[in-house]
C-alpha cells in the first residue's frame, strides 16, 4: 500500500511520530522507537552538563541521525524569543537540519500553547528558512493562520500534553483537517491505541506522541500497539466507514430461504 505521509516535500511511510523523553534508559528508548516504526523522532535541546563523564551514553548513539529524521523541539519555551533561539541552536547542532517542531507554552500547569507567541515565532522561523511543524491549540482560525504563515504541518493537541485524555474535541480537529492543505498531525493527549486510531479515522495525517508510549507499563509493547492503531485508523479512514444508523433492519444474512418458510 503506497500511502506516504508527505512533509515539506519528503515522504515518510510511517504516520506515527514519537518523542524520546521519559524513558527508563536509552536501550528502552531505542527498543520502543523501533517497535513504533516511527521515522521521525522529536528531541529536545538542553544545556550540556559541564564536567559530566565524557563517555556517558547519549541519545545520538541510541538513535543515530542516519536512521531517523530528528525533529528538534522547543519544549519548555514560554516565549517566541526563547523558541527561536532554541531552534537556531538546534540547526547548528544538527548540521543545518531545518525541519523543526515549534511549541511555545503558555502555562506551566496545563502546558497549553501560547498562540500569540507561537504565531510570532512561526513567522520569524519560516522567514529564516526553517520548515516548521507547529504544536497549536485546536482552534481552526489560528491553525489556518499558521498554515498561511508557511508552516509545513499544523499539530493541534487532542488534549493536554501528558494527560492521556484522548481526543476531547473531534469536531474542531475535523474542521482543521477539512480546511488544511498541509498535514494535520495530532500532537499531545493520546493515551492508548484506540485514541490514535480515532485520530486517524477522523482524517488526521499522523499522530505525534511520547508519554502514551513511554509511561505505559510496557513501553515497547505499547509502541507496537500504537503502530498498528495508526495503520488501522488510516486504512479505516481511506476505506470510508459505513454511515451510522440507529437501526437498519437489514440483516447481513439472507432474508429468504429460511427453513420452514
Amino acid at each position, binding site marked *: 500500500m503506497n500511502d506516504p505521509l508527505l512533509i515539506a516535500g519528503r515522504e515518510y511511510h510511517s504516520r506515527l511520530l514519537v*518523542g524520546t523523553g521519559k524513558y527508563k534508559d*536509552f536501550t528502552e528508548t531505542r527498543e520502543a522507537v523501533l517497535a513504533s516504526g516511527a521515522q521521525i523522532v522529536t528531541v529536545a535541546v538542553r544545556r550540556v552538563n559541564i564536567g559530566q563523564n565524557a563517555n556517558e551514553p547519549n*541519545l545520538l548513539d541510541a538513535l543515530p541521525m542516519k536512521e531517523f529524521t530528528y525533529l528538534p523541539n522547543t519544549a519548555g519555551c514560554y516565549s517566541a524569543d526563547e523558541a527561536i*533561539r532554541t531552534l537556531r541552536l*538546534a540547526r547548528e547542532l544538527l548540521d543545518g537540519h531545518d525541519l523543526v517542531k515549534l511549541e511555545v507554552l503558555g502555562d506551566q500547569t496545563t502546558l497549553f500553547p501560547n498562540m500569540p507567541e507561537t504565531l510570532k515565532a512561526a513567522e520569524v522561523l519560516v522567514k529564516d528558512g526553517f520548515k516548521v511543524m507547529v504544536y497549536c491549540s485546536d482552534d481552526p482560525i489560528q491553525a489556518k493562520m499558521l498554515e498561511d504563515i508557511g508552516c509545513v504541518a499544523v499539530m493541534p493537541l487532542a488534549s493536554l500534553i501528558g494527560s492521556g485524555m484522548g481526543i476531547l474535541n473531534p469536531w474542531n480537529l475535523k474542521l482543521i483537517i477539512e480546511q488544511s492543505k498541509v498535514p494535520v498531525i495530532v500532537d499531545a493527549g493520546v493515551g492508548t491505541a484506540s485514541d490514535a486510531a480515532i485520530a486517524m479515522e477522523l482524517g488526521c495525517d499522523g499522530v505525534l506522541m511520547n508519554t502514551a508510549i513511554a509511561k505505559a507499563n510496557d513501553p515497547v509493547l505499547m509502541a507496537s500497539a500504537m503502530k498498528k492503531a495508526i495503520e488501522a485508523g488510516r486504512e479505516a479512514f481511506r476505506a470510508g466507514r459505513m454511515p451510522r444508523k440507529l437501526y437498519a433492519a437489514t440483516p447481513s444474512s439472507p432474508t429468504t430461504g429460511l427453513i420452514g418458510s
Partner: protein
Amino acid sequence: MLKKVLPMLHISINGEAREFAAPMTLAQLLDQLQLTGKRVAIERNAEIVPKSLHASTPLADGDALEIVVAVGGG
C-alpha cells in the same frame, strides 16, 4: 621584580561563572571542558558561533556562553 598578572577571562557558561587564563579560543575552551568532538552547539552573547569558527573565535572577558546538546524529549 614586578609580578606579571595574567589577564583572566570571566566567562559565564550555561549560567555558571568560570575563570580562565587569557588568551583562549572557543575550541580551546571546548577542549578544557572535554567537549572536543562532541556534538554541541554554542551561543556566544546570544549569537550562534558556527562549528567552523570555533578555532578562530577568541573569548573575551565577560562573555556569556550557552553550550547545548540534543537530549530525549517529546
